[in-house]
């Protein structure tokens, strides 16, 4: 059973970077990604997320 991850960042390259790092860890898997907090909230409400990678400066 892998840990389901959500990635939130407004910079696409940063998402790619975290994705790349996560892919190297077997216990983690990326199930969703988005570029703002509102979308993140929506995703949190519709699917099961265990772990969220959230950039602190991300806008709404």
């Amino acid at each position, binding site marked *: 059973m892998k840990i389901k991850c959500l990635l939130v960042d*407004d910079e*696409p*390259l940063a998402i*790619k*970077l975290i994705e*790349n790092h996560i892919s190297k860890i077997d216990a983690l898997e990326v199930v969703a990604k988005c*570029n703002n907090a509102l979308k993140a909230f929506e995703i949190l409400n519709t699917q099961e997320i265990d772990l969220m990678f959230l950039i602190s400066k*991300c*806008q*709404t």
Partner: protein
Amino acid sequence: MGVLARILIVHVGETLVRVPPFRQETIFEILIEWKKLLLHYIPAIYSVTLIFLFIKYVVDYNRIREKDLTLDKEKAEGELKTLKAQLNPHFLFNTLNNIYTLSLVNSPKTPVSIGKLSEILDHILYKCNGKFVLLSSEIKLLEDYIDLEKLRYDERLQVSFKTNIETDAEIPPLILLSLVENAFKHGAGEDSGSPQIDISITNKNSLFTFEASNTISKHYQGGNKEAIGLANIKKQLDLIYQDQYSLNIDRNKNIFTVTLHINQNSI
């Protein structure tokens, strides 16, 4: 003083040059003739002193003015250095991070991006040491900068960059870059909607025009920082162009526009 001078002239000077016979006043006579002393000898002596004082004053004044001018110049150079220093840390950090990611995912953009960053640093470090740089060279800088900034954002960000250069011109270095940086920082960096940035540069009939406009997010709160940045630029332009330029900042509901006009005939 006056008494001493008169005694010397009457008893030493006149005996040497004047053909005798002539009447010589005694020291006592000289001492009591205070009117003659006051009206003839004292002004004669002090006028020389005054002339020298005046010359010294003029020389000192010129020296101080020269010093002021050098100070002004040094200040302008110092401000230019600040402009240069402002770019480096943030932009360099972001861009290196972006390039790191590009290389990690084996993106074909990696070498191009490194090349552009290198070109930017070359321009800033080695070509911006004079008072002016070629407009064409600054435009190349802006293009590289915009391309690197675009790496950070996805298709949400719309950037247009138009140039219409009739003849190449000389402009103060890095001023345009600061304005473009501002547009990105406040336009794209703080807006997650669909920000748009439009930049245009024209140089026609000796009139140079730069215009940068960016959309601003609803939640944007203008800080003092940008005001300081713009004030610095204004100071620079004041020193170089006096009243031969205009820098207009316009902010309506959701678009922020900076327009710079320079009359190239002025230099």
